[in-house]
């Protein structure tokens, strides 16, 4: 066993994928009676402990949904807060069953870290925020600007790439911490602030002295698709995580909510809803679960729209419109594979 461990370590270090261990994760989770979920140790809207120490957030609710489907109780999750450096090791070494920690899906990570991304739960992208009185309405007009940015992130890299690609000059004003960089921006130390657009929206809503004085420019200069990842080599578990998320999206598309799920389960004539809620078909069995798996997810956690609105939607301090994260039927990118 120890030799296997060494091999995994060597493989991980060399950038080769880990060994195959089919089906082991589901069995381990069921035996333990809880899903081990790696989350961010503090990112508003995605995973953060509230004043009572309870985890809330979009990434967190994804884990709750998985727990509801697999161990029948959304609260049966063992939370493992992880730093950015720790996260992939924790997944590779089996410390967590699923990594739901605002992690961007990129080729390098997908191909070299021994993990599989499942489904995108949040489409993000880097953007710019400027004071309204600057009179700028496109990032193309930002030549020569001083830009506040947090150091050591891909944000800094994307920023340089964007300005170079467009043949513009800029002066980066780099800060170590989020607090420093935002304070500098609101004190006028620089004209532009850049980070992911979800971060900009919450910054504008919660930290700006007057939100109307600041505008977020329309350009997204990078793609940041965020979603949970699982360890390679366990296809059964991979499918479960994938379809739990699809089920929340499918539920929103067909109007199944936390409030009406019981009623629809009893009365709905729609075959899609019937299959989703386990009234007809053997969908859960095919995944290695029972047929009420998706019913529990919706009942205990809600559909994707409810999860979104509760954590990052317009009525929260984050205050994000659905945008790209709306259903495909409303012009967004959320498209669940059919459950049939």
């Amino acid at each position, binding site marked *: *066993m*120890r030799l*296997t*461990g*060494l091999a*995994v*370590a060597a493989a*991980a270090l060399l950038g080769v994928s880990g060994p195959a*261990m089919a089906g082991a994760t589901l069995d*381990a989770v069921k035996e333990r009676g809880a899903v081990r979920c790696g989350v961010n*140790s*503090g*990112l*508003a*809207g995605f995973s*953060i*402990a*509230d*004043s*009572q*120490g*309870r*985890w809330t957030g979009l990434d967190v609710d994804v884990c709750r949904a998985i727990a509801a489907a697999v161990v029948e109780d959304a609260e049966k999750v*063992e*939370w*493992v*807060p*992880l*730093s950015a*450096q*720790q996260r992939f*090791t*924790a997944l*590779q*070494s*089996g*410390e967590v069953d699923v990594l739901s920690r605002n992690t961007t899906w990129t080729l390098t990570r997908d191909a070299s870290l021994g993990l599989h991304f499942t489904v995108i739960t949040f489409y993000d992208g880097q953007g710019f925020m400027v004071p309204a009185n600057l009179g700028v309405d496109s990032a193309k007009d930002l030549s020569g600007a001083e830009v506040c940015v947090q150091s050591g992130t891909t944000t800094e890299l994307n920023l340089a790439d964007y300005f170079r690609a467009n043949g513009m000059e800029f002066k980066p004003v780099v800060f170590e911490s989020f*607090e420093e960089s935002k304070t500098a921006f609101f004190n006028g130390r620089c004209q532009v602030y850049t980070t992911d657009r979800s971060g900009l929206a*919450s910054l504008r*809503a*919660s*930290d700006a002295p007057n939100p109307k004085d600041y505008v977020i420019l329309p350009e997204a200069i990078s793609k940041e698709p965020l979603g949970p990842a699982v360890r390679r080599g366990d296809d059964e578990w991979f499918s479960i995580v994938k379809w739990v998320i699809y089920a929340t999206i499918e539920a929103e598309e067909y109007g199944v909510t936390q409030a009406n799920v019981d009623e629809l389960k009893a009365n709905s004539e729609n075959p899609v809803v019937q299959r989703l809620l386990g009234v007809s078909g053997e969908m859960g069995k095919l995944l290695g679960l029972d047929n009420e798996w998706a019913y529990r997810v919706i009942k205990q956690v809600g559909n994707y729209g409810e999860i979104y609105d509760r954590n990052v939607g317009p009525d929260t*301090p*984050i205050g994000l419109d659905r945008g790209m994260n709306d259903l495909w039927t409303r012009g967004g990118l959320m498209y669940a594979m059919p459950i049939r």
Partner: protein
Amino acid sequence: MSDRAYVAERILPDEEPPAASIGFVGWLRANLFDGFWNSMLTVAAALILIRFVPPLVDWLFLDAVWGDAPPDACREAAGACWAVIWEKHRLILFGRYPYQEHWRPVLGMAILITLVGFSCNRANWRAWLVGAWALGLAAFFALMWGGFFGLTFVPNVLWGGLPLTLLLAIIGIVVAFPVSMLLALGRRSHMPVIRAICVCYIELIRGVPLISLLFMASFMLPLFMPTGVNIDAMLRAQIAIIMFSSAYLAEVIRGGLQAIPRGQFEAAEAIGLGYWKMQRLVILPQAIRLVIPPIVNTFIGLFKDTSLVAIVSLTDLLLATRQAVSDPLWRAYFVEGYIFIAIIYFCFCYFMSKYSQYLERQFYTGQTRN
């Protein structure tokens, strides 16, 4: 009759000293306005104080928002927002420990602090103190973990805040101290293998930052374990802290050992003491007494270094505070959060510093200069 020019026929009564050299004015002249440059310094310092102290007092106290207030109240106030502490103090102090069970870490901390306070008294330095510690720590862990008498089980990944910081620091000190004594003795040993091991250990551990030990413990170690077998993250961090501090402490204690004259060793041997008895009864008591200030220095460093475990996602006091102030409703008031824990850290460090001064007064009776 007398050829003397002057004879004092009565003793003059004592004159009062000049008004300018006694009382408040005299104190001012002696301490603040003693010559031109000192006067200039005093005036400059006074100007700086007048410039900065009143706004600080306004911000800290007069304009501050106290007690249970919504974040909007803080937005309107000009001063500090202590409401953030009111709102978040449970999260800051106890991390993610289950909310209804917070009385358990409170009681646990009381046990730890009582143990420390009890051990500070020299009269209690007896063999049974070891038993008291074993008992106290067992009570602490039983209380924190629970799982009996109707107490719900709380896995230690949920431990956080001040109890975690205290636990890491206190166990770190209690274990690292004896280990470091052995290392220091080993480094001065005449047995080549033992000496080589101790020298290698000390130099290796001292040569890397604590942060890299923590990283190694939390990233490399799991990769070498079979999948599914995990050593507890808290234990890993605790071991890293103990290893790191004991290497530093060993050198401090060796400094004390070097200062003991050879005659003491010879005298101890002459009355027939073996190696361990000689070290325990004659050498170490004298050596450690000499190096109390640097030992306490290392302890204070260790206490503050526990905040580095935030990097491996243990929710110590610092990380719990960071979590508390990343709430978008309250994150504008992160400074207040950090001031709050700075005060907590200061209280503990100041206690250690004061205690070391007390010990010095107790022990340095024959060597003090004044």
